[in-house]
């Protein structure tokens, strides 16, 4: 399932025959945020893949943006705590799924806009880049790695700001 708008993702998860996501659980998952970006929801980032509930035992299947991401344990802890606070949920188990592989397309427009407010940007489908600060396309890569493994560093020659690009 590839997520576009958050509403599409929610609807797809809510209606999927293998999913037992209730609106309460979705709200709980929505309230779990990226540990590095405290206002961006993991649902909007496209990390939630499956939710299966059986007699109050919930299993949430997540996919990591990068398999070596150091935030995985923290995200799993937060998801468990959030889901276990939902009515009628007895316990929650989190699994990191080996597939599908996360891709930037899984992010919702909301998450993209939020990341842009941090000067972090995604390439367009044609590989193009737009500076999230001034809108210029005069953005040039400086180094393949930045502060995290999932981002490279570019420089906008128009407004002279560093821009981080999700890889």
């Amino acid at each position, binding site marked *: 399932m590839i997520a576009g708008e958050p509403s599409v993702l929610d609807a797809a998860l809510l209606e999927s025959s293998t999913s037992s996501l209730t609106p309460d659980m979705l709200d709980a998952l929505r309230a779990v945020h990226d540990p590095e*970006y405290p206002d961006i929801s993991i649902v909007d980032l496209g990390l939630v893949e499956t939710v299966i509930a059986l007699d109050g035992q919930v299993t949430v299947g997540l996919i990591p943006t990068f398999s070596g991401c150091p935030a995985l344990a*923290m995200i799993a802890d937060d998801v468990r705590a959030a889901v276990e606070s939902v009515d009628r949920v007895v316990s929650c188990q989190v699994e990191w799924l080996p597939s599908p592989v996360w891709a930037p397309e899984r992010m919702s427009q909301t998450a993209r806009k939020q990341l842009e407010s941090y000067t972090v940007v995604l390439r367009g489908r044609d590989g193009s880049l737009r500076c999230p*600060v001034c809108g210029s396309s005069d953005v040039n890569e400086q180094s393949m790695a930045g*502060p*995290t493994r999932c981002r490279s*560093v570019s420089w906008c020659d128009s*407004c*002279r700001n*560093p821009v981080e690009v999700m890889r």
Partner: protein
Amino acid sequence: MRTLADAPAGGRSWAGLDDFQAFIDAGGMVEPGDDMPVEYRDEVFRFIEFHANSELMGGLTERDWIPHAPGLRLKQIFLAKTQDEIGHAHLLYMVAADMGVKTRTEMLEDLFVGRSRFHNVFHYQAVTWADQVAIAFLVDAAAFASQRAVFAECTYGPYKRILKRIVSEEGFHMRHGEEMLLRLATGTPTQHDMFQAALDRWWWPAVQLFGPDSPPGDTDPLIRWKIKSKRNEELRAAYVQKYVPLLQSYGFEIPDPELHQDADGTWVPGEIDWEPLKATMRQGGPDSARRIKTAADNWADTAWVREALA
């Protein structure tokens, strides 16, 4: 709090410092394309250079502990934190170099010969693993508080944009620090003693990270031009107020015999000896020479990479 809502203007100029001050006081944000007063440019540049140097030196300290961190998960966390700090230094050096005062190479070379400064806390030695936990819990928290106070105002646009990311990413480091501290605090008596010994070494450097009291009124140009939103003594007092009861609740003792609560419950530290801080500013801290040499060697050892990429 100043916001970054608008796309950067740039291309502005001011008749003089009074005119510029009026712009700052009215909530203005300076951008690289502006013809900013040279006094402002130099102060902001020095501040960003100091911050960049501190991120780099901090990253190298974290790196030292990757092989020694107990367990794969903590090694992974230290790897990520090292990359985070070096990455922050990278972004900050880009913005600093763009200001046209020094090139990136000049900044690094000044750092490696001891001509420029970095945070006092990176002039000390981390003796045991518990020291590294104290750094993650206490020192990162102090640095975080001071960065947050810069982010709150910060009139230089590109710096404020980087700080927004740094501040949110440091919040993630805080959680790791707390997690590691909890393990030692609730561990064996030996682990508890280890952390107490580390606390004895790191409490004062952490408190001194905020610096001596700011000069009176708005004589500090960084306050006047709203790079800093709070005075050093305000930040220091808030830090002591938060961390004293927290550390005591885990059963640790603050290494300050004169520490006491005043009538309204505020924690008041004993008189601070600023000599150790001054020594670090002259590169004369207990571990300054070794740390600077390690960083310089690292730079020299990687010369071939820069040549290959040039």
